[in-house]
């Protein structure tokens, strides 16, 4: 501080967002900067607050699924699954095996789509403009597949309490295989272009480092946590649906820097492809909806369920008062909780790093603000 006083410099407040190309939506962070260095950062959220949790209290259980679609709007099916699992546990419903396979296959595809979007936007944050084109091209194939299954590209409302809305179309399996083949090529293309690019390494290696202990104490989950070397994955540690029957690897980083967070996601793309392939192999014909007729009113009680979303551990807490509407729904959104780690990561970084760090946590504002 003494040298600063000698040079008679003052810190500058730089308001980044809510309208800024690198804040991925309406996120606002107020940076305190000294020249090009970030001294402190204050995140401001709430620009996309829609009161989703409160709205849930006015909808019947079946209708709440549509609200969950709108939380993490690039991984809609994963959100639907989280709520449906909570409601199913509350009502004690057994989901048919085929429905579970369809759910997992679609969720992994959605994770793939979400990570592809991340790879592209992260490159844009760092000033490379080509990977997003590759990412969107491959994501588009997945979206088309979703459209053929659910009839929608984003707000699917396809995973329902007790199963899925309807069986997948008859040509789903071959179509999905073709899509996976193309997507694998696209992911490799991004990998070759970006991962070991000297400039990319210079911009991401050793930037935004967060060690395992701090990451855990900040409540970081998902790929951002695994990049710091903690092998925590809900699919592995608390398996749900048919994940136990799938073999996969959980990629784990070591440095906890931006590059690791990027590379973990890139490797997860390959794992998701692998998992979807297994689902397609193991899928057998059968019903896709529970045979229980009365699924509107759960008994009194409460339940907490968590799932592995593309951005981390999504938790859903539902309280039932015995009516057809939940008494309270609380979501633990991974993006929101991951934002806690923003400040420890960003202190002392450059302005350009601030963008790289924020991009590497991969937040979705629909989920942060709810």
């Amino acid at each position, binding site marked *: 501080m003494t040298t600063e006083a000698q040079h008679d410099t003052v810190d500058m407040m730089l308001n980044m967002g809510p309208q800024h190309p690198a804040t991925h939506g309406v996120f606002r962070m107020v940076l305190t900067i000294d020249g090009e260095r970030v001294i402190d950062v204050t995140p401001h959220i709430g620009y996309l607050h829609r009161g989703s949790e409160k709205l849930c209290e006015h909808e019947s259980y079946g209708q709440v699924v549509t609200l969950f679609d709108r939380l993490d709007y690039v991984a809609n099916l994963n959100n639907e699954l989280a709520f449906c699992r909570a409601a199913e546990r509350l009502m004690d419903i057994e989901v048919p095996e085929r429905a579970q396979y369809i759910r997992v296959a679609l969720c992994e595809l959605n994770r793939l789509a979400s990570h592809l979007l991340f790879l592209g936007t992260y490159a844009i944050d760092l000033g490379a403009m*080509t990977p997003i084109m590759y990412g969107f091209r491959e994501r588009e194939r997945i979206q088309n597949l979703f459209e053929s299954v659910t009839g929608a590209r984003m707000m699917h409302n396809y995973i329902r309490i007790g199963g899925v809305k309807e069986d997948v179309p008859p040509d789903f399996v071959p179509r999905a295989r073709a899509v996976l083949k193309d997507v694998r090529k696209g992911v490799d293309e991004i990998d070759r272009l970006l991962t070991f690019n000297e400039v990319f390494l210079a911009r991401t290696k050793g930037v935004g480092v967060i060690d395992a202990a701090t990451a855990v104490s900040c409540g970081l989950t998902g790929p951002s946590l695994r990049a710091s070397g903690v092998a925590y994955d809900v699919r592995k540690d608390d398996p749900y649906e048919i994940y136990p029957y799938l*073999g996969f690897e959980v*990629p784990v980083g070591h440095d906890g820097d931006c590059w690791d967070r990027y590379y973990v996601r890139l490797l997860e793309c390959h794992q998701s492809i692998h998992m979807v392939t297994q689902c397609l192999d193991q899928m057998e014909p059968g019903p896709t909806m529970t045979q229980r007729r009365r699924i509107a009113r759960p008994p009194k009680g409460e339940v907490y369920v968590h799932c592995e979303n593309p951005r981390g551990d999504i938790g859903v807490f539902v309280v039932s008062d015995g009516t057809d509407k939940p008494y309270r729904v609380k979501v633990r959104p991974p993006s929101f909780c991951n934002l806690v780690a923003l400040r420890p990561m960003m202190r002392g970084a450059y302005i350009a790093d601030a963008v790289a760090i924020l991009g590497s946590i991969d937040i979705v504002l629909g989920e942060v603000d709810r």
Partner: protein
Amino acid sequence: MRARAGEAVVFGMIVAGLLGILGGLVLSVGALGTPERVTLEVLAQLATVLIVLFTLLAIVVLTLVWLERKQLARMQSRVGPTRVGPFGLLQPVADALKLIMKEDVAPGTSSKLLFFVAPLLVFVPGFVVWLTIPFARDVVVRSLDMGLFFFIAISVLSIVGLVLAGWSSGSKYAVLGGIRAAAQLISYEIPIIMTVLTVAMLADSMSFVVVVEAQRTVPYIVLQPLGFVVFFLAGLAEVGRTPFDVYSAESEIVGGPFVEYSGAHWAIFFLAEYVNTFVIGAVAALLFLGGWSWPFGDLPAAAGVALFLGKTYLVVMAIFWVRATYPRLRIDQLMSLGWKVLIPLSFAVVVATAVQLFYDWPRWTLPAMSLAVLAVPVVMQLRGGRRRALAEARRYAERAVVVEAKPRPQRPQEPLEPQEAGA
């Protein structure tokens, strides 16, 4: 149908105009000698030349914009502009019209006069440089003996405009961009001066024409490859293109000095950026690729111009190619690359050239020295990069947690009835 015809007419007019301007330039500028005194006639002649040059540059910029968008699109598996005109050729014209028709807004906190002068300060140097750049031996507005010096002296002026734009905008992002621009452009001016000096030493002249004529048999890129690489990289930084687009970084400081500009004034910045890119391409073509000359005898002026433009577009396309490939450097990395790598390298180039010339070593020693220096980073990069990738892959493979698939419980023998499926 009428729209189609209109497009064709406009396009034809542009092509005809381009050809006419080229012809006019060839005919008129050769005749412009040193006037005894300033008469109305001389002024008119000067105005004509300037207007011709400006129009020519405007058209060059329009083609560059189209070329960049198409080339980037092809590299990113897109098709690029296709709607306006054949192959989307008129897209830049449409964009320019849109920009000119937009409202010109100045922020309330800006210093209005400086704010509106700054774009011109950036544009004029890039424009004036063209007065001395020869398209072919006789196709030049003014062939100066100190052409290389003139180029350096004039092109460095655009820094003032960028800093002024950043400062006068009254916006923090713009100020940051302006300061970055000052630091970046001043740093990268030195390698440019040094490599240009090398060329001047080799040709024993600072006139563009002499430099090009000296490359009739062997272009200087063969003699001094390292010099070309340094010039190309520093040139990228000079015009603020990827990976050195630090001062206008779109995703960090949202366009830097340009963030508050709109409409016609933004269009002038845009024009300046492309004119400057073309200047770097043209100077690289003249200094290192042999300009309008080729080893097989003399070419007619028109063919020379075409050859020169071809080489220029080649360099410019390489600049666009880099843009499609690389992320952006950070400001500190940019500065250390400039001061710790490019400036020492450019001094090495000067020293090597001087030694070769002074001791009259055979000519092949120069490219040998140059390539030897160039090989060090290339080999280090290639080997280091591969080793790094392999090590990284190994570390990840070691740490990855493998989750084995459990065997699936046997399903009941009789599958459920299909009508229950949709329940």
